[in-house]
């Protein structure tokens, strides 16, 4: 590729975000943007890029919402659309949760290639959001080999790496 691929890495806060940060080496050489719900997470995104000797990534915030907060969910969806329109990613990578599903649906409309990585927390069954989002993703991954199946998610490894070198 002559141009650096533009990647948007997006997730909710908490465990989803911790897992997203562990994917940073896969984004080496890309024009990278992160999106999540907590402003202070920017420092972690910058630290991950520094640790990889990469330029500072873009950082975008969207509103946190749970499934009962209808107005906030609407606002969140609009913000996700605005972020996708601004970044125009070639590739969207998300570790969930619900905002990742919305981003995959919107990202596809804008021509992005999309990746859903189901949380390592889902050991015995896929997350509900993952079951919804997976079929719409170009690459659908589970982190547990037992959950891989034809027509469903593939297993290509886990965010739990080995011991520190």
């Amino acid at each position, binding site marked *: 590729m002559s141009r650096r691929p533009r990647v948007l890495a997006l997730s909710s*806060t908490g*465990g*989803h975000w911790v897992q997203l940060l*562990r*994917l940073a080496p896969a984004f080496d050489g890309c024009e990278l943007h992160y999106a999540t719900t907590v402003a202070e997470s920017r420092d972690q995104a910058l630290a991950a890029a520094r640790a990889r000797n990469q330029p500072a990534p873009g950082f975008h915030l969207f509103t946190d919402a749970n499934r009962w907060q209808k107005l906030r969910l609407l606002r969140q969806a609009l913000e996700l659309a605005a972020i996708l329109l601004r970044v125009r990613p070639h590739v969207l990578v998300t570790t969930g949760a619900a905002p990742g599903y919305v981003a995959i649906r919107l990202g596809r409309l804008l021509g992005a290639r999309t990746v859903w990585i189901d949380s390592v*927390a889902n050991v015995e069954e896929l997350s509900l959001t993952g079951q919804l989002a997976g079929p719409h993703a170009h690459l659908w991954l589970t982190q547990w080999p037992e959950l891989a199946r034809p027509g469903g998610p593939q297993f*290509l*490894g*886990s965010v739990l*790496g080995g011991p520190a070198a």
Partner: protein
Amino acid sequence: MIFFTIGTHEPFDRMVRAVDAWAATSGADVFGQIPEPGASGYRPRHFPFVARLAPAAYAAKVEAADFLVAHAGMGSIITALQHGKPILVMPRRGHLRETRNDHQWATASRLRAVPGITVAADETELPRLLDDLVARGGTAPAPLSPWAEPRLLEALAAFIHQR
């Protein structure tokens, strides 16, 4: 210091009560991250807590802690492993509506074999396991690399760069 976290999303009164009762009898130095309990929620009386720590302050607490006590959330578990700190987890249960399903129970069952991770099935097991960790200091987990498995990173990079 023992750092106690139940994540930042939802209450987990069953565990907060148990840790509070244990802190009262043991006199241990506990610091908690507990989302705002609200009017009906349980407020610990025997240790200080905040609703949410910023990532840098959170990392500093983990680094300063002798060990972590937490719900069986992957964020808490991965953070403990990255810092090489022992962690005692108690899973939220689906049938008690502490989270939407029993994924924490499944996570805990799978990860209990990892050195440095101890699992309390419920609040009755918790005090004894806490006493145990205080007495023995716990086994430090082998520090986890900050990055995902190389084969996952390679697969993801290959997907990103394919055309």
